[in-house]
């Protein structure tokens, strides 16, 4: 329980009496609220996510760039797909992770969820930026325009601004706990954008083509292009996880450091201990 109190020390607003008594009963969920246990598990996980990210991304992208066939009408420009589509999937998946962390934070007051949300945000924003930029570089030679305001492109741009807004909101408060609360609410309100992104190409006519890979139907893509795409997407996902994991470990350590220095500062100032 010492560890939980370490995190709670920076969290005067979020830990009131009844919650604390419940917290002892909720075993599984709060097991990882213990930063020591989280750090040990994460340190063991990190080499695996790193290795899988490097190997799978390298494999998928080299396959896509040099060995997959060119498209019959798009030529080699179709190879942009191997970075654009994984980035697009991850932009949405990262936001789902952000929303899950926000629920854990708002309902269960999970201290690690706040830190995780704060670390997922910037990585998600970067992935969304890659999706938008690579899509622009694909759209210019194929469609004839860098950008159009159709429902798909606009809803993904909104997703980017949601990520950026989340990052800004977390830093807008003097008291971190209030920032986490506001950020979690923003993230959950913004989650309404996810189904709009997904179904925009079906609900409205757009310049962006519909999805080639769906859960319900067979892919409308040659298998010689599908495999490198799936491998690249898997590699990108592990890369996302690896970066978020490393940032989260650093964030937990930094918080522990702050608490240690604070308590030491108090002790040095002659506070009764």
């Amino acid at each position, binding site marked *: 329980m010492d560890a939980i109190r370490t995190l709670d020390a920076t969290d005067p607003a979020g830990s009131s009496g009844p919650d604390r008594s419940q917290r002892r009963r909720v075993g599984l969920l709060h097991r990882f609220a213990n930063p020591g246990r989280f750090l040990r598990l994460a340190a063991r996980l990190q080499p695996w996510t790193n290795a899988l990210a490097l190997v799978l991304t390298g494999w998928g992208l080299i396959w896509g760039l040099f060995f997959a066939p060119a498209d019959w009408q798009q030529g080699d420009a179709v190879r942009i797909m191997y970075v654009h589509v994984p980035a697009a999937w991850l932009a949405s998946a990262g936001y789902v992770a952000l929303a899950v962390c926000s629920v854990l934070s708002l309902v269960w007051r999970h201290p690690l969820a706040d830190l995780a949300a704060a670390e997922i945000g910037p990585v998600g924003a970067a992935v969304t930026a890659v999706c938008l930029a*690579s899509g622009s570089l694909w759209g*210019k030679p194929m469609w004839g325009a860098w950008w159009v305001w159709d429902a798909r492109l606009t809803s993904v741009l909104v997703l980017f601004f949601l990520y950026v807004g989340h990052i800004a909101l977390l830093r807008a408060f003097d008291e971190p706990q209030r920032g986490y609360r506001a950020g979690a609410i923003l993230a959950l309100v913004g989650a309404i954008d996810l189904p709009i992104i997904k179904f925009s190409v079906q609900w409205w006519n757009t310049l962006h083509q519909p999805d080639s890979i769906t859960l319900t139907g067979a892919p409308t893509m040659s298998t010689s292009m599908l495999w490198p795409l799936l491998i690249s997407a898997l590699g990108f996902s592990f890369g996302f996880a690896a970066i978020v994991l490393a940032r989260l470990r650093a964030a937990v*350590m930094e918080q522990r450091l702050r608490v240690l220095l604070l308590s030491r500062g108090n002790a040095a100032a002659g506070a009764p201990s």
Partner: protein
Amino acid sequence: MTHLPYIAGAYGLTLGLAAWLSMAAMLRLSRARSRLRAVEQRGGRMGGRRP
């Protein structure tokens, strides 16, 4: 390869951003780790003990 500038741009941007994010995360992690270790060693009695 047709459309080479566009392809190079998309891949370069993606890999560049990925490399930057990874390096930044690694540096931040190693700095946090070493600072935490230094502080814990300086005053082990103050709460540096592991749970």
